[in-house]
């Protein structure tokens, strides 16, 4: 049993290490997109001033709409790794040891099922746009590259959820092992530390 367990730990750990840089990169792209959209907004306001340029950016709204999935969905797996997606953890805090990890295993299966379903069918949604040459209303930009981001991001999220499933399963088998590929359930005090780190920029956490 111990040998199987170790192997599970090794596989999960290696997959985790492989996925992390991918997730970090995707979230960095999203972060850059935040800056880009901000600058685009500023340029749009300046270019629209009547007595100055009076030349608003052509297709500005389409551009924003098509780039929103970069900000809104590309980092979804990064968020899952950091446990940012909200949940009610009032019951989880009462659980310890094996029970906790059995419930966490169940939770990751539930999430994995729905995310796999959505990955599959958002691919259909993308293919429809690709084959029909669907384009945006004003500037007639093609929509498929933007729609393709959804199945890509969800597929990566599926990989993350699979890692979390294996990690939880391993701990459900033997709760005494070190945590690999799972999120340690956070209580309100942990959340508060996280909020403080976000607001004050990292040097303030005690």
């Amino acid at each position, binding site marked *: 049993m111990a040998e199987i367990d170790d192997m599970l730990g090794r596989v999960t750990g290696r997959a985790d290490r492989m996925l992390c840089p991918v997730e970090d990169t995707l979230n960095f792209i999203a972060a850059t997109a935040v800056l880009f959209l901000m600058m685009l907004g500023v340029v749009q306001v300046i270019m629209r001033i009547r007595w100055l340029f009076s030349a608003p950016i052509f297709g500005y709204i389409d551009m924003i709409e098509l780039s929103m999935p970069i900000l809104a969905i590309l980092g979804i797996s990064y968020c899952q790794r950091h446990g940012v997606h909200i949940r009610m953890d009032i*019951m989880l805090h009462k659980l310890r040891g094996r029970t906790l990890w059995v419930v966490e295993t169940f939770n990751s299966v539930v999430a994995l099922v729905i995310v796999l379903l959505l990955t599959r069918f958002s691919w259909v949604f993308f293919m429809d746009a690709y084959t029909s040459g669907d384009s945006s209303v004003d500037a007639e930009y093609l929509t498929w590259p933007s729609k393709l981001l*959804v199945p890509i991001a969800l597929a990566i999220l599926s990989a993350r959820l699979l890692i979390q499933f294996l990690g939880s399963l391993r701990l459900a088998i033997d709760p005494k092992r070190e945590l690999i590929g799972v999120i340690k359930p956070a209580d309100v005090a942990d959340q508060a530390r996280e909020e403080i780190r976000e*607001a004050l920029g990292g040097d303030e956490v005690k």
Partner: protein
Amino acid sequence: MIIGIGYQDPILVGIICISLLFVLALLGVRVAFAAALSGFLGLVELIGFWPGATTAASIPYAKTSLYGLSVLPPFILIGFLAFHAGMTAKLFDAARKWVGWLPGGLAVATVMAQTGFAAVSGASTATAAVFSRIAIPEMLKYKYSKRLAAGVVAAGGTIASLIPPSAILVIYALVVEESVGALLLAGFLPGIVSALIYCAIIVLWSMYKPEVGPAVGGYTWGERARSVPGVLPIMLVALIIITAIYGGWATITEAGALGAFVVLILAFFHGMRTKQLKDALMETARLTVMIFTLIWGIYIFVTFLNFSTVPQAFSTWIVGIDAHPYLILLGILLGYTVLGMFMDAIGMLLVTLPIFYPAVMALNGGDYVLAADSPFGMTKDQASVWFGIIVVKMAEVCLITPPIGLNCFVVNGVQPQISLQDVFRGIALFFVADVITIAVLVFFPQIVTWLPDLMRGG
């Protein structure tokens, strides 16, 4: 469940899937995924596998690629950069010079500075964190009671979710398909009223017990005047956002982008490093994804709910109750208080609004009611904005009350020498203030509806 597709009673399927959502959420499945799965299964059951699955899977794209939602990232970014722009200390300094002479003057100054900071921050916990560091040490230096110092910082943070730019009001507007601009403007006066009620209660309490909050005076008019330029940048950002919404010279997204740009420049002048900018951007992306995932997850569920006709049935039931509409509203608000003990504010709004919002609108008399015929004295547009502000205020009260009370944990996290018990005891006073505020907003809806009505030209 797949067996007998299309033959079930939609209400029954609705009730089963709502129960499934609650069981999954209680077990600790991330709310977005619990809602998406329940909604997916329900849709498949009601309209068939292929149509149900493709409808559900089109929602993550459809609900993220909306221009209206693009306002969120710049608003969130402004909040993350605001601390680095160094405007908070100057705000607090100016406020104490102007109102420090009042009983409980430093606490009043804290509320005023937080209200000002709210104009560049849309997040209540962040505001509490920032002021825990700036205002609490000053108050303790002047022998303020720990409880008052901690309570005012935790409670004052909640003002940020009413005063624009408020992320949670944007989310409300999008869920109920109301104008984002109307909601943001509507929050402005209630935010001020809430702050004034906080100040009044601090002054009264400090007059009754002078030792908890001594007055700090002795500033000359010259010193006061010199403190004003420090707060101008914040006023500029607030002015950009509010005039853009009100005057329509830019869309809200553009105003948000411009506001974020101004704060970014200020932050660089104040010595922010590239590393901190990168962190702020990464955090913005993270929070954006969290909110959007919740939005599309819940929306899959809402799409199913509308097929199930449960919201309509609930509205009919609510309207049929033989009690005064205000009493029913009170019941709904009490429901929020209970839910708020278990859920985060954004999650709570998203889960409850699809059912409660149509019910309250029906209670007000439906879509085409005249103000004179409505039991609350409002048209549908007015009622929708009014309910939004009240619900958001309710959700914020949950941020300062046990057992979750995240703001209290934040204060304790930054100032560990003040115990959590002391923070929660310090909150009691402000809890009373919040109950008064909610009552005022319920019975004087004009405070909420006046600005949006002006914007709509009504």
